């Protein structure tokens, strides 16, 4: 999957969404390196240079979108099209039909429904333009604000995995997976 096949930027009521560029990264880093943001994120970057190198090396940069409110970058989105689990003989039919989404938002902008607004657009991109049939989102079960976003998006909690995810400070915590099928989204 490539973001190239989509017409950018996308506008919602209050936000502009587009693929991240190198010049966005200082602003994204400023959000991601805040302890309260990093609490539930996959990493807590401390060095800008190392973070940028990791982003490029892991492919995460290619899956990163930014959310702009006016002129300010208020957070980033994650969008990764992946393969569904399939028996070997039908693996091709299961390729590229599922997407994982994720997000982070600057604390100053939290509590206004901005992530839900942005992800509503992300779901539309997935189901209408990328031909995805299922979208999933994962989180620590204790990350209440993110779970609320998933629920507002109409996603269903399909799994709560006991002590399956290791948190840097809190130890082994439950992880949840939420999902939404295209036909559920359409109705």
């Amino acid at each position, binding site marked *: 999957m490539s973001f190239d096949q989509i017409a950018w930027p996308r506008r919602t009521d209050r936000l502009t969404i587009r693929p991240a560029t190198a010049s966005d990264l200082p602003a994204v880093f400023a959000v991601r390196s805040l302890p309260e943001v990093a609490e539930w994120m*996959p990493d807590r970057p401390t060095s800008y240079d190392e973070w940028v190198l990791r982003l490029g090396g892991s492919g995460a940069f290619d899956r990163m979108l930014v959310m702009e409110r006016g002129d300010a970058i208020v957070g980033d989105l994650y969008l990764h099209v992946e393969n569904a689990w399939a028996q070997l003989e039908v693996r091709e039919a299961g390729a590229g039909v599922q997407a994982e989404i994720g997000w982070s938002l600057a604390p100053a902008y939290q509590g206004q429904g901005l992530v839900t607004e942005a992800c509503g657009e992300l779901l539309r991109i997935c189901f209408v333009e990328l031909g995805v049939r299922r979208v999933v989102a*994962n989180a620590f079960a204790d990350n209440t604000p993110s779970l609320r976003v998933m629920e507002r998006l109409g996603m269903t909690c*399909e*799994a*709560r*995995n006991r002590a*399956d995810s290791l948190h840097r400070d809190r130890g082994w915590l439950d992880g949840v997976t939420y999902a939404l099928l295209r036909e559920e989204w359409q109705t």
Partner: protein
Amino acid sequence: MGGDAAQDLTAFDRVSWPVRSERLAIRPPTPEDFSRLYEIRAAPGVTQWLTGAPASLEDYVERYGTPERLATTLVLEAEGAVVGDLFCAVESPWSQAEVRDRARNTLAAIGWCLDPAYTGRGYATEAAAALLRICFEDIAVRRVVAGAFADNAASVRVMEKIGMRIEGRGVRDSLHRDLGWLDGVTAAILLEEWRERHR
């Protein structure tokens, strides 16, 4: 949450083989096992719920004879014969980046395949229970998971019998070669839960 896909290919080195349960012996495979293991897969109905349905012995060896697959496959013996195989992949579960080392190789994913000629005797349950013991006591993981199509009632029953909890049911998340998109279930058990059952 998704784990680190890289598997620990040396996990079986930490086990002294064969491992015996009341009626079964479990050991790593050798190339001499391939034809018998393929014969089991080729029996009617066996591959219905399995990941792959090899079309020939050559196909089987090509898929399952690789070092990576051999390092996650075990042979099941009963009544003096090879009666099935087990899957056991030691992996790194999802963790935040700063503590990845602490999470490394602490998760095992298991599965089983039994010759239909030997079903109905509790061998799958006995084998899966023995495999749990291997995972927790010898390989020393802290969590074991198993996945199945939700319609695979026999396997789900085995999971529950050995003390695994159904943690997730993915709605039409798994593609079956004949039946299309079906629900998948995942089951899990933690070391402390397993210990509690075996006090």
